[in-house]
C-alpha cells in the first residue's frame, strides 16, 4: 500500500480513536511487560511504531518517557529494601547516560526509513537474545576485579524466600562499562528503555545475583532514559496526546500484571513476548525497507 494511502486511511478514522487505542494497547503491554519481565519500552516502540499512524520520532520519545515512568515508580521500594544497589548502578549509569545522549542525537538526525529498518533488525535481535539467554540465580564471582574492588561494588541483601542474608560481589567491570555504553546508545537511539539488556549484563557478565540485577536494572534505566528523554523533549519529539495515554495505560497495566504474576504461566507469556517482538520487528523492517508501508 503506498504511504499516501496509509496516511489517508489513518486520517479517515476519527482522530480520538488513536489515543484511546493507544491507551488500551499500552494497558495490554503493561500487563505483558510485568509478566514477562521485559520492559514496556521495548514492546511499545516497535508495536506502536509499526501499527499506529504516528511518526517514529514521537513514538521513540514516548517510549523513553514510558520506560522512565515505570522505572521511577518501581525504584523506591526496591532501593529502600536494599535489593537494588545504587552503588552498583551509578558507574554504569554514568557511562550509559552519556551514550544515550549520543544515541538520541544520532537517532533524531538519521532518516526515518533507516531508523525504522535498524529498529526492525534490533528488535528481532532482542527477541533472539531473550529466547536464547540464560539466567543465573547466584553467579559465582571468585574475586572482584581491581576497579570493582576500588569502588566496592558488592553488597548484601536479605532473601525472604530462603530466609538468609546473601552476600554478593562483581567482576569484569571494564567489560560491563563497554556493554552499558552500547546499551545506552541503543536505548537513546530507539527509545527502547534498556531492561532487556541491563539484566543479562548485570547478572551474567558482572556476576550480580539475579534479584539484585533485576532490581538494579531499573535504577540504571531511570538515569539512562532521563538523559535521552531530555534530548527528545527539547527536539519537540514528545506529544502529550501520544505520551500521556501511553504512560497511564502502561502503568495501570503494570499494576494488573503485578497481581497476575503469581497465577500467570510465565513460560507461555515469555513465548508470547518473543512472538510479539518478532512480528513487530519484521513489520518494522518491512516498513523501513518500503516493502510493506
Amino acid at each position, binding site marked *: 500500500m503506498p504511504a499516501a494511502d496509509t496516511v489517508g486511511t489513518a486520517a479517515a478514522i476519527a482522530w480520538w480513536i488513536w489515543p484511546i487505542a493507544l491507551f488500551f494497547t499500552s494497558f495490554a503491554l503493561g500487563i505483558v511487560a510485568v509478566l514477562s519481565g521485559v520492559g514496556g519500552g521495548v514492546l511499545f516502540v516497535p508495536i506502536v511504531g509499526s501499527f499506529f499512524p504516528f511518526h517514529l520520532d514521537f513514538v521513540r520519545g514516548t517510549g523513553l518517557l514510558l520506560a522512565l515512568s515505570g522505572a521511577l515508580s518501581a525504584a523506591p521500594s526496591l*532501593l529502600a529494601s536494599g535489593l537494588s544497589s545504587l552503588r552498583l548502578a551509578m558507574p554504569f549509569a554514568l557511562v550509559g547516560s552519556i551514550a544515550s*545522549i549520543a544515541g538520541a542525537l544520532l537517532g533524531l538526525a538519521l532518516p526515518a526509513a533507516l531508523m525504522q529498518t535498524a529498529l526492525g533488525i534490533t528488535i528481532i535481535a532482542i527477541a533472539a537474545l531473550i529466547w536464547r539467554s540464560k539466567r543465573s540465580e547466584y553467579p559465582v564471582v571468585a574475586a572482584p576485579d581491581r576497579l570493582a574492588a576500588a569502588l566496592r561494588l558488592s553488597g548484601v541483601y536479605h532473601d525472604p524466600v530462603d530466609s538468609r542474608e546473601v552476600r554478593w560481589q562483581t567482576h569484569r567491570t571494564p567489560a560491563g562499562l563497554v556493554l552499558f555504553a552500547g546499551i545506552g546508545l541503543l536505548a537513546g537511539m530507539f527509545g527502547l528503555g534498556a531492561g532487556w539488556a541491563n539484566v543479562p549484563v548485570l547478572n551474567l557478565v558482572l556476576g550480580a545475583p539475579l534479584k539484585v540485577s533485576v532490581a538494579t536494572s531499573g535504577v540504571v534505566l531511570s538515569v539512562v532514559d532521563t538523559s535521552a528523554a531530555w534530548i527528545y523533549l527539547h527536539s519537540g519529539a*514528545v506529544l502529550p496526546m501520544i505520551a500521556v495515554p501511553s504512560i497511564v495505560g502502561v502503568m495501570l497495566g503494570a499494576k494488573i500484571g503485578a497481581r497476575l504474576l503469581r497465577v500467570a504461566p510465565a513460560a507461555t507469556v515469555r513465548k508470547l513476548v518473543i512472538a510479539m517482538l518478532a512480528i513487530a520487528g519484521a513489520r518494522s523492517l518491512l516498513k523501513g525497507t518500503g516493502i510493506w508501508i
Partner: protein
Amino acid sequence: MDLETAQKSFARWIEAGTRAGLALLAAGFAAYVSGLLPPHVPLAELAGSWHLPLAQFTAATGAPTGWQWLQLAGRGDYFNFVGIVLLASIIIAAYLRVLSLVARKDRAFAVIAAFEIIVLLAAASGLLNSFGGGIS
C-alpha cells in the same frame, strides 16, 4: 553518610517526585482534552500532522522546541510539559541529594554523582541538541 544509607534518601526523593509528576501529568491531560485549557496546536490539526517527521511537524504546527514551551505553558498541550519535565528532573534532584550526603564519606561516588549531574544538566539545558539534527 555512606552510600548505602544515602540510597534510602535517594529512594524517598524519587518516590515523592514521581507521585507529583504523575499527578501533574494526569491533571494536565484532563485540562487538555476537556478543553479547559485550549491547546496551542488544535486537536484536528495535530491528528493531521502527527505522521510527519519532526522537522516538518514543527514547521507545520509552530510547535516549540527547547525551553520555548514555557511561553506556552498556559496552553492545554504544553501545560502537560510541567509534569513531563518534573519526571525528567527527578533523577537530577535525587543525585544532588546523594552528592550532598556522601561528599565527605565516599569521595569516589561523590565524583561519579557530580559527573552524572553535569551530564544530566547538559542534556536538560537543551544545548546538546545543537550537536544533533539542529532541531532545537
